């Protein structure tokens, strides 16, 4: 007889948890429905590549080069010229009021410069308070404008000297953030939300329903109870990961550069840390209500300080340090590096290690806090 761990007893816990999970239709539905709903909602609502953005055109001349340039910009789909104004000052006001996202200025000597084969310039000012809004529009700009001009002049594109220079001014916030941040980040946020919440009520539910007394009177060890409570959620987590990653690819076309195995390993470690965190909460909370409150107490700062909502580097140093205590912060670094930059293991080993450390910390606290008696 082994008092600390037996597979048979762990099996008993696991089977019971799976049956209860299946019977609880609403919770089960939430576990599968919530990730999909959140992903679609946030994925589409938080659009990194918005089109038909309101724009102002500052153009004094009405030559065919200028017209060609404007129609070329419009055909990209990003620009919608609602305002044609005469002065830069008026355009400035429009942008300050937030009525336009772009101000495109075609100087009066544009046609002359093109005809002379000189350096023709156009100026695009973008409202970069939310930098991701403008990034798509700006990135297509150079080539589109160049092609339009080349077509209009009827000459070969390979003209190194007589090129067109597009001057981009990102206004209000000169530093942009990456375009595909949101969807990989959502994987972390969705997992955190469901995994922590579901496991945070693991023990409080037993306590509130009065079944804890019985469970403690039977020979189940703290380790068996803990693993029996959290391991079923690894399966739920796996389903969520599959859903989110497929959607990321199919619905949002998020690029996937790095190693899939590496990504899944990181996700596994992250999910294990999360379910143990939830379980730790359930050893602290007395009621399911308290467990929910503790979960949200943890949830909001982790959302704000992890770099999911706001750029991590933009926060003051103390907030950055605070952000380090959340598994989500480290997971976001790993998943963004692997998915978007194609990072290999050595590059993310440290952050993955930190995630692993959370597993031991949470499991340790939970086992220390677990009482085998009702005292």
């Amino acid at each position: 007889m082994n008092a600390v761990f037996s597979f048979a007893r762990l099996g008993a816990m696991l089977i019971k948890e799976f049956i209860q999970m299946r019977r609880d239709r609403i919770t089960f539905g939430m576990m599968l429905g919530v990730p999909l709903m959140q992903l679609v909602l946030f994925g589409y609502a938080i659009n990194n590549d918005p089109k038909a953005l309101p724009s102002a055109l500052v153009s004094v001349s009405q030559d065919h080069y200028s017209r060609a340039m404007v129609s070329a910009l419009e055909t990209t789909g990003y620009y919608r010229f609602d305002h044609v104004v005469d002065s830069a000052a008026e355009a400035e006001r429009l942008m300050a009021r937030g009525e336009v996202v772009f101000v495109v200025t075609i100087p009066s000597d544009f046609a002359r410069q093109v005809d002379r084969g000189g350096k023709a310039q156009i100026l695009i000012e973008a409202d970069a308070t939310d930098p991701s809004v403008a990034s798509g529009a700006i990135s297509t700009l150079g080539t589109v404008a160049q092609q339009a001009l080349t077509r209009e002049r009827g000459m070969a594109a390979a003209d190194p000297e007589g090129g067109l220079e597009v001057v981009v001014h990102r206004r209000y916030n000169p530093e942009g953030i990456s375009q595909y941040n949101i969807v990989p980040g959502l994987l972390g946020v969705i997992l955190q939300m469901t995994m922590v919440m579901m496991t945070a009520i693991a023990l409080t539910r037993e306590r509130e329903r009065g079944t804890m007394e019985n469970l403690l009177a039977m020979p189940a060890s703290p380790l068996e109870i803990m693993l029996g409570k959290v391991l079923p959620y690894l399966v739920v987590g796996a389903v969520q990961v599959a859903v989110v990653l497929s959607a990321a690819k199919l619905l949002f076309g998020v690029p996937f550069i790095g190693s899939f195995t590496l990504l899944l390993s990181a996700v596994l470690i992250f999910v294990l840390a999360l379910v143990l965190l939830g379980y730790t909460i359930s050893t602290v909370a007395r009621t399911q209500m308290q467990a929910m409150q503790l979960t949200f107490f943890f949830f909001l700062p982790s959302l704000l300080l992890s770099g999911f909502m706001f750029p991590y580097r933009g926060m003051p140093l103390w907030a950055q340090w605070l952000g380090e205590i959340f598994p989500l912060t480290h997971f976001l670094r790993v998943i963004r590096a692997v998915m978007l930059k194609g990072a290999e293991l050595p590059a993310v080993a440290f952050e993955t290690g930190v995630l692993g450390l959370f597993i031991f910390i949470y499991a340790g606290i939970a086992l220390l806090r677990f009482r085998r008696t009702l005292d």
Partner: protein
Amino acid sequence: MPAIDVHDLVKRFGDKTVVDHVSMRVEQGEIVGFLGPNGSGKTTTIRLMCGLLTADGGGGEVLGYDLATDALRIKREVGYMTQRFSFYEDLTIAENLSFVARLYELKPAGEYVRRTLDDLGLTSRRNQLAGTLSGGWKQRLALAACIMHEPKLLLLDEPTAGVDSKARRDFWDEIHRLAADGLTVLVSTHYMDEAERCHRISYISYGKMLATGTVDEVVRDAGLTTFIVSGPRLETLAREIAKLPGVEQVAPFGATLHVVGSNAAALSASLRQLEEREGVRVAAGETSLEDVFIQFMADATDNMQ
């Protein structure tokens, strides 16, 4: 080796002493009734004995294992039936039993479950969710689950609360069958008829053990004298009797009054005067267990004040 041999158990919650130097000895194969009013410390004492609570003082052995150091062994060999139904309402009867069987590492689990279902007549309801069962069936399931691992000691905490007479009768028949096979049973209850079905009883009040022994011993040791009084206008008579010296309890039973007191001489002197009245008859009666318990409760309240 006695099944339970604990002495001077103390348990405090905050500054309230819930169990106050309770000692108990239960021999193997005995059915011992554990009685006392609500909040007297019965549940806490039972929890101390199955390792669910740690004692603040005292100690002893349960099934030969030390309470302080061998709580895990005790858990394995004791069957504990909680006061409140504490199996999983969202699991079926069979699923609950198979959970318990696996947790106790009974092999093969399926065989144990099938046999237990058969023994308790639960087979036809095996796939019913526990939450949809009536009180009597829940009690059967709970009993089935806590005897499946063949414990040597059964601790039952008010097992028949809220269960109808037929189910209670069946339940006690089952308890006696199990005891005949050598199982020791400690059962807490409020019901006098159940107390009388036990080999011995222990009475606890405000955390203190007040009496222990067979029903006859407890009644005898209480030293109460009982008279049965009958006559016209019983209610007026009862109020009158209550004021007489030596009278401690007056309770109507049908067309008669049970008059109880601990001072036999004073009581009979008081009642002899009544006998001279028209139509009033006084006869010696037998003190019942209930009379004794009411007396205990009255005394305990006096002590607290």
